[in-house]
């Protein structure tokens, strides 16, 4: 997995009983008056800090400058705060309250970045520059004779075995390079729906390439098990 393995923590989140700090967060956020106001301000401070850290973590891949990044962080923190306070009743104590809350702000950062993509780029979703594919999959130009037929078969599979919707999503993501979250916004859908469409498209293309002898019939996952 690309994702890093963290250092061990001492708390095992299995008992689903909120810890003392989480209980205090819930109590103060559900209260009224100065106690609630102080808790909301403290939570916003935590969310803004996490949002700033997250946009900074992603900045090298975004090509955004300081003010734009901070604007995204502020918007993400404000929207996450609103969502959290509206959904307090959905917190089931399966994790620390702050871990649950941080999830909201991280997902908001992703959404804001997806929205920002269309402000900065003029990528046509249906731009079919198939010449980008070798680079996309790390194919050595010097070995073109070896993979030329494979990529031609891949293109045929995209045309022949995918539905019109699957083909549109495949071309937008793989050929035009539109990020999934940006595509979801453009098509007024969500990341999960895009992923499921791509999941089925990938499976169908692979089966076609394997049936025609271009790839092993066993997938990398099946070979590992």
């Amino acid at each position, binding site marked *: 997995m690309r994702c890093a393995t963290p250092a061990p923590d001492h*708390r095992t989140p299995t008992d689903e009983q909120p810890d003392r700090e989480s209980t205090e967060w819930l109590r103060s956020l559900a209260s009224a008056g100065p106690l609630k106001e102080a808790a909301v301000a403290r939570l916003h401070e935590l969310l803004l800090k996490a949002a700033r850290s997250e946009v900074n973590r992603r900045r090298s891949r975004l090509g955004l400058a300081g003010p734009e990044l901070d604007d995204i962080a502020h918007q993400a923190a404000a929207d996450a705060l609103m969502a959290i306070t509206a959904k307090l009743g959905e917190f089931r104590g399966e994790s620390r309250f702050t871990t649950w809350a941080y999830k909201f702000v991280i997902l908001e950062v992703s959404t804001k970045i997806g929205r920002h993509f269309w402000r900065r780029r003029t990528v046509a979703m249906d731009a079919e520059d198939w010449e980008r594919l070798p680079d996309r999959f790390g194919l*050595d130009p010097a070995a073109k004779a070896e993979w030329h037929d*494979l990529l031609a078969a*891949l293109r045929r599979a995209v045309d022949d075995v995918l539905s019109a919707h699957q083909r549109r999503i495949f071309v937008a993501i793989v050929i035009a390079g539109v990020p999934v979250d940006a595509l979801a916004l453009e098509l007024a859908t969500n990341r999960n729906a895009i992923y499921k469409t791509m999941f089925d498209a990938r499976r169908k293309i692979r089966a076609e390439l394997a049936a025609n002898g271009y790839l092993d019939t066993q997938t990398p996952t099946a070979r590992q098990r």
Partner: protein
Amino acid sequence: MTRWDALDRFLDTDPEDVGCEQAMALLHVYVELLRADPRSAAERYAGIEAHLRACGPCCEDFEGLLSAVSADQRLKVL
């Protein structure tokens, strides 16, 4: 290993993959268990791990949440 490993991995689909919705619904639980006991996390949430291997955007969110929680815990220790 093949000469087109990246393409083969990209087209690979794991039947255990739970998809974005389920992975994101439990991400906070998975992240805490992963920090506490990586082996238990792998056993209990194999479907989430399968998803994070395949989905770039969800993996990005996972890394962001892990980073936020780790920073938070470091502050509490100080």
